[in-house]
């Protein structure tokens, strides 16, 4: 999915450059646009629900499936019933609490990876785009090197190094292969912003490079990055599932959506559909929420759409 982001490059940075004269009111406008967009409201409520599940699962489910005595093997694969609408997992744990407690592992990684790729991408992209010359050449070639390694293959090779795969190792690896696209986006965005009149004007007035970057370049280039990052966030969630399916993601007794899906995949066809459908539904709703939020942000950030 990182590649998906990269390709948004040209589409993204063209439209999201605010006109210079609107700079000061940009964020005000964005807020105003968002407030009146129902899609924004629906998706942000969903995102808030998901985030609260991720960070405070105890609000949504009483006991963690990893707690002592929480799972009973006797209940393995019991299907949903009126008394127990979500049924039980393959390990005999309550499906609802597994889903709730699994949110953290799946969503937090996605958030951390997004933050990581944004920090790396924005920094390197800004340096490459603004400084140009040798720095640009080096950064661009290094980006190429990481691009040369297809995402899943790269993640596979890399994850094999970590015997103990947790939030941090997964984050590190996904970030490692995700930063490149955002760097490219940011670089392109910065290059086109750099040529704007107001940057020349600021330079003529004797502003320091640091000031120009902070005040003008970042403010005007970061919009596409924010939009793409929210879409990426969604995509990283399904990446976790795929890596787990390939055997290099989380391992039991960790609970994550990816593990549930990977496990439920074969059992669903044996008649235990809830083992696949429920975690997939959680992933789909989450990804949908983040992408819709990204869409709403993109629309709000697009001055010409107004």
């Amino acid at each position, binding site marked *: *999915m990182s*590649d*998906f982001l*990269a*390709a*948004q*490059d*040209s*589409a*993204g940075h*063209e*439209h999201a450059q605010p006109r210079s004269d609107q700079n000061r009111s940009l964020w005000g406008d964005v807020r105003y646009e968002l407030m009146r967009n129902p899609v924004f409201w629906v998706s942000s409520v969903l995102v808030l629900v998901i985030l609260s599940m991720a960070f405070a699962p105890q609000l949504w489910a009483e006991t963690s499936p990893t707690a002592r005595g929480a799972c009973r093997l006797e209940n393995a694969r019991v299907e949903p019933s009126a008394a127990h609408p979500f049924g039980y997992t393959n390990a005999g744990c309550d499906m609802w609490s597994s889903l709730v407690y699994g949110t953290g592992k799946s969503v937090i990684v996605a958030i951390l990876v997004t933050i990581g790729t944004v920090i790396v991408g924005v920094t390197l992209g800004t340096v490459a785009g603004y400084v140009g010359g040798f720095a640009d050449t080096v950064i661009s*070639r*290094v980006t*190429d*090197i*990481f*691009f*040369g*390694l*297809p*995402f*899943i*293959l790269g993640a*596979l*090779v*890399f994850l*094999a*190094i970590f*015997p103990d795969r947790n939030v941090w190792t997964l984050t590190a690896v996904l970030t490692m292969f995700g930063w490149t*696209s955002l760097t490219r986006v940011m670089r392109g965005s910065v290059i086109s912003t750099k040529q704007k009149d107001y940057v020349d004007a600021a330079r003529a007035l004797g502003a320091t490079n640091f000031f120009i970057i902070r005040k003008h370049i970042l403010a005007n280039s970061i919009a596409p990055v924010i939009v793409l990052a929210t879409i990426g966030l*969604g*995509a990283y*969630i*399904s990446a976790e*599932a*795929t890596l787990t*399916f*390939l*055997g290099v993601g989380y391992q039991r007794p960790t609970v994550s959506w*990816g593990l549930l*899906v*990977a496990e439920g*995949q074969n059992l669903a*066809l044996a008649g235990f559909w809830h083992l*696949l459908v429920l975690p*997939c539904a959680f*992933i*789909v709703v*989450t*990804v*949908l929420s983040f*992408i*819709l939020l990204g*869409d709403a942000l*993109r629309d709000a950030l697009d001055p*010409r759409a107004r």
Partner: protein
Amino acid sequence: MGRYVARRLVQFIPVILGTLFLLHVLSVLTIQIVGDPVRALFGENAPPEAILEQLRANYNLDDDCLEQTGNPCVRLFVDRLAQYASGDFGINFRGRSVAELFVERFPVTVRLTVIALVFETVVGIFLGVMAGLRKDKLVDNFVRFSTVLLIAFPVFVFGTLAQLFIGLELGLPLRDSERAPEWLGQMLTVTYNPEFPWLSLMLPGLVLGAFSLAAIARLTRTSLIENLRSDYVRTARAKGLTSSRTVGVHTLRNSLIPVVTYIGIDIGLLLGGALVTEGIFNIPGVGQLVFLAIQANDTPVILGVVTILTVVFLVANLLVDILYAALDPRIRYE
């Protein structure tokens, strides 16, 4: 254009060296941290040490630096480069030449990739254009929602469902039927069939291309909407051109520029990332080869094949960039 290509070719060298080194360090680290891959070939019970040592020597795994965690083993890297330069990509743990393995499997992956690319490009652009032209209408919302589904569903779930419901439920009766044409039944295949090297890759190709299709459709849509608002499209209308020409010639070509960028990146994604699809549909392709090699820490294969893949990826990207330059003259004269 010639100079542009030449410059790009020169830039390949550091990139390939860099990718190679990155891979080299990763696999060296894997051996250092995870353990001796040769020993792992034998399972619970260790064979005589003499045999392990012979095998390590056979696979160039007997260097001391592989015992020192964190040592990048530069000497091994240099040796390997020299070996590659002479066209020798080593042998795998089963004594087979890596180059030979690659040649065996590469055509399959190429066919699969081509099918996926054609499918995702044609259908993706079509959907994107439909959605873009009817922004916020029913078609648009349908495309936007269904593409989110394609992005959200892990590919292995999607692949299994396709295999079961399209390949078996739909395809099997067709294959058994006397009246249905053979090509149709083979197209809706369950597993790869070497007797139908193209047809039986159709369904896997569609599964493989599904995610990118979503990406391309969304890209085309965004890009088309952008361009429809541009000044030159207004000019085209002021020139009294038909609306189909305004969209088809004056808007689409400009809108395809980011799509082409994406396709360039996607070739690499498809080539290497096909392993999930290849596993589901039992396709003996390159992705699976590397996946199995990673499982067995079969370093010669990982390095050799991924190196060749990287070269293919870079060349493909060069071709895409040339296409890109053809589409957008502003790039050509940078």
